[in-house]
């Protein structure tokens, strides 16, 4: 026990500054309403859905829980059920074998909800594209608010995407003009 406490003290606090938002990531700025942000903007719960990825994106999403990114310290938590979630974080080209499961997960997530597609495959199908087995990008299957490119995107980019989606960090003025659209 004593050695654990000593190691914790020796390690110290490693958490780094959070990233700033990037409106370049927005796919559907109009979908993000002020009122959603009022509801979701403080504590955010995320259900991660691997819809067919190679697992590279999952490894980097996992990293958000490490002390450097400390995502829970920002009030953001990964939850075990879509029914507890405000946001779906979806990776992969959506495999046809996951198409139904992804749609059901989306339907099970209570409104208002946000969808962030992570990775090159989630953004545009990536190297896998569309085929007998792949639906390609996430927005071919469910509505997407924000897409984070990269193969896989570094954890800080994924975090930037999540924070941008909920307007939790400093944003550029023009982003705000996109707010106030109607919820589909």
């Amino acid at each position: 026990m004593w050695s654990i406490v000593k190691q914790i003290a020796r390690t110290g606090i490693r958490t780094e500054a959070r990233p700033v938002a990037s409106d370049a990531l927005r796919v559907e700025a109009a979908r993000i309403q002020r009122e959603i942000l009022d509801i979701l903007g403080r504590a955010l719960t995320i259900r991660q859905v691997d819809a067919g990825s190679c697992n590279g994106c999952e490894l980097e999403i996992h990293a958000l829980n490490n002390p450097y990114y400390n995502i829970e310290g920002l009030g953001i938590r990964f939850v075990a059920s879509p029914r507890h979630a405000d946001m779906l974080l979806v990776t992969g080209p959506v495999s046809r074998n996951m198409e139904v499961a992804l749609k059901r997960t989306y339907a099970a997530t209570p409104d208002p909800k946000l969808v962030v597609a992570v990775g090159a495959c989630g953004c545009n199908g990536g190297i896998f594209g569309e085929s007998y087995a792949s639906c390609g990008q996430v927005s071919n299957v469910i509505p997407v608010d924000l897409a984070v490119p990269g193969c896989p995107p570094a954890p800080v980019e994924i975090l930037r995407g999540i924070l941008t989606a909920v307007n939790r960090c400093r944003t550029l003025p023009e982003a705000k003009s996109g707010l106030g659209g109607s919820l589909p």
Partner: protein
Amino acid sequence: MRIPGLTVDFEQLPGALPVFRSAVSADEWLTVPMTLIKGGGRLLSVWGTDRGGGQFAVCAAYAAREGLVWLDLPLGARTTYPDLTPLFPFANRMQRALFDLLGLRAEDAKDQRSWLNHGAWSPSHFPLREDNSGQARSTDLRPGDYPFVRVEGDGVHEIPVGPVHAGIIEPGHFRFSVVGEKVLRLEERLGYTHKGIERRFTQLPPLNAHRLAARISGDSTVAFTWAYCMALESATGTVASARSTWLRALMLEWERVANHLGDLGALGNDAALSFGLAQFSRLREDWLRMSAEIFGHRLLMDCIGPGGVARDLDRDGADRILLQCDTLEREVRFLRTVYDEHAGLQDRFITTGRVQPELAAKLGLTGLAGRASGVAADLRRDYPWHPYDKLDVKVATHRNGDVAARVTMRFEETLESLRLIRILCKGLPRGAVHTELALPEKPACGAGWIEGWRGEVFVALELDGSDNGGGIRRCHCHDPSWQNWPVLEHAVIGNIVPDFPLINKSFNLSYSGHDL
């Protein structure tokens, strides 16, 4: 070339590891493996090829004492071949996948359920056949419609889990039959991440398809990319430079350490020691940040390419790696004492999810999990290709076959890999890091075989030759998870449901690498 005990005449393929290939008859398809088993041989993979013009072939790869034995059974227009499951029970899923993708059926096989096709494509429309565009979809998705084996009896009930899992994990379905908390039976259903990788390979230029190999399984990107490049270099008769081979080995060990660090943290966390996750995930992050700086990518994707590696390592980079190895080793040794001395943790680890050595041998358990159950196989020692012939790899093995043994394996392999990384950094030979490849004019084939962090990764490549369009005829990729997933079903029998996440994590098998 002859292998003792066999009458078949083999051709040895060029390449770093010994690979022997031969066409065989339907009789030899079964008699050759029977002979190989007696010499300690094991089945690696089963796959099929459409050779064009309605000509099919089914292939199997075995690991024998002499090296890798690749059998090719030409079927002509026939679509059946002799069943391998009586010899190797775990051939079942590979044979079912082979039917789903190519329509070749194992004669008289008992289990004929679809494996990869969940209704996404028509059961009479096989995506790996030449006459199929690879785009045709069925609209008849029936993911829930799968005949699981039922367990009957008083008080038995089923727990369905997945495909969307409760954590940040790949998708798959587990069907538990339980009495109270005790697991009577687990049946897996995989294939959810099947995204048509083997079909996609045939659409990519051979010199560019290593990027697809890098994305078969994100945690084994080095192993698969190297295996693909090894197969391509074998098919083209190219010898990669010594320097690039040393750098590839450096990255392979780097990947092993990165994964072991992640798993050690997650295993601590699954047994409620969140301190372990915090510490190991910090060490993993330091390790990945360094790989981004030194090699150009956190997970080392696309750092290996046909004929060499993407980036050279300079003296300064090597020195920084050596420094990082010292820091990491100190921390890992300390954390190992914490894990070893933590009574609560050991109580969860010891005897949990046990696979006895006899069962492991019978079911073909391989890789890290195999070595934790007495299966002492490691390509780096058994067929030491360059530079492993200079490294004298010490293979850790244990016989308890429980979660504790698989945790210990990870500690020992991490320390051994750090030793290898130091040698690789210090002894890096001079020379170029890239060799030009010339694609063959005639059809050619090659094999790649690499001991990845999870176990042996295998790639079988058939090129059309530039006279026939210069494309990839077939690229079959095999992940050790094919062998190990069925063993996980046995490992959980008699354990309680809450121990499943811990047992599952201790195997940490790939979904994407299996589903392709």
